[in-house]
């Protein structure tokens, strides 16, 4: 596991960071996305989906719980906000999704500290100013490298 932090001054910069990371995603990657309301988790997902070459409008899946974006690497977008805390993400079919695709999971902190290791990467977004955000990524070097270059 490696770690990297980046700051973003705008929605466009968060989107660009997402695209860079999305290009490094592989089948089996399950990225936990944490951060308070309005942090820009869905914006980051929009970048990740575009970077992975997947298609379809990215909207908040808070109510629909799960949206899939088809592509060479199918990207699954999940949201645990409305779900009971400490829920086993496998009940949402996470294992099946990861066989052929990647999963991006908003409000992942709701499942707790993840002792069983459902996620292989985690990005925590902190609000540091009206449009400024800090994005702290931990995960395999292959993913962190997306943000260490340039």
């Amino acid at each position, binding site marked *: 596991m490696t770690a990297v932090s980046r700051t973003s001054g705008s929605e466009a910069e968060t989107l660009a960071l997402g695209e860079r990371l999305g290009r490094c995603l592989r089948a089996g990657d399950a990225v936990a996305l944490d951060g*308070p*309301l*309005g942090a820009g988790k*869905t914006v980051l997902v929009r970048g990740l989906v575009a970077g992975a070459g997947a298609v379809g*409008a990215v*909207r*908040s899946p*808070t*109510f*629909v*719980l*799960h*949206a*899939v974006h088809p592509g060479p690497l199918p990207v699954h977008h999940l949201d645990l*906000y*409305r*779900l*009971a*805390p400490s*829920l086993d993400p496998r*009940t*949402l*079919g996470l294992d099946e999704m990861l066989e052929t695709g990647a999963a991006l999971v908003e409000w992942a902190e*709701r499942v707790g500290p993840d002792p069983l290791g459902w996620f292989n990467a985690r990005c925590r977004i902190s609000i540091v100013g*009206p449009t400024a955000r800090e994005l702290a990524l931990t995960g395999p070097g292959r993913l962190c490298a997306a943000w260490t270059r340039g």
Partner: protein
Amino acid sequence: MSLLAIETSCDETAAAVVGPDLSIHSSIVASQAAAHAAYGGVVPELAARMHLERIAEVTAAALAAAPGGWGGITGVAVTRGPGLAGCLLVGTAYADALAGARGLPVVGVSHMAGHVWAAQLADPALRPPFVALVVSGGHTELIHVEAPGAVRLLGATRDDAVGEAFDKVARLLGLPYPGGPAIDVSARTGNPARHRLPRPILPDFGFSFSGLKTAVRYLLDDLRVGDQPLATTAQADVAASFQAAAVDTLCTQLEAAIEYTGAPRAIIVGGVASNRSLREEAARRCRGLAELTIPPPALCTDNAAMVGAAGWEIVRRRGFDDGPLSVDPGLASYI
């Protein structure tokens, strides 16, 4: 002869009997909300299991309250998507089994089409062409129903649905879940002009409510002193200002869609259509522009009568389905 309609896509187990003239002979809704609240959120497996436990009694109650019981039923309509896969499977499997045992045909219905055709339950004279504003926890879309079976998506939210914005703002304000009704009530005593919040009007009839949610968050950061909760009057002012911005945005895009399509009629459907401020403001702004129908609140939130109405629309247009139904959790169709 009536349709027996079944709805299990989310956390309401519902059954209804709807006549061909769209009269509602019975409509039973059993909510799971309290059960999920005990866990602090939705538990998908629990939702499917509770549908399974309740569907027989809910269906029996709907049939018992309808004239003629089974004798008055000509077919079964059931929601096949969008929704939770496990929940949808309970409804479609039950509908298939009932229909098979009784020798009746079945028709699979989109939950979204159900919301749209709920308007015809409120006004049986409603016919295309019309514009529909579909507003719920998961959807904010403007569609043009040009003719039977011909539906064009005019625009949709780019991020959060409006119902989601209501829920998340309610949580920021410390109001109880579900947030929509809580904000509706709190806003009644607040000043909607107290805070000016963003009203993004996107091209192509698009919506964006994520920025409004974030603006409320920053407003609360400014208003709060330390960890003290907001006074009730201040809370009501924020609720009213947020609601005014959301409702204004929805009405502005609805007016634009009516003008663009030239449709003589418009409807507002989905759970958020039960919001009192939206109902009043839309009625005022559509006057002289288009004839507006908003179903009563009980037909805006999830129910099975709307599935019966959409079922009749499909059966008249193309008949019943052949063979067992498949579920489609990501179904995005209005027809």
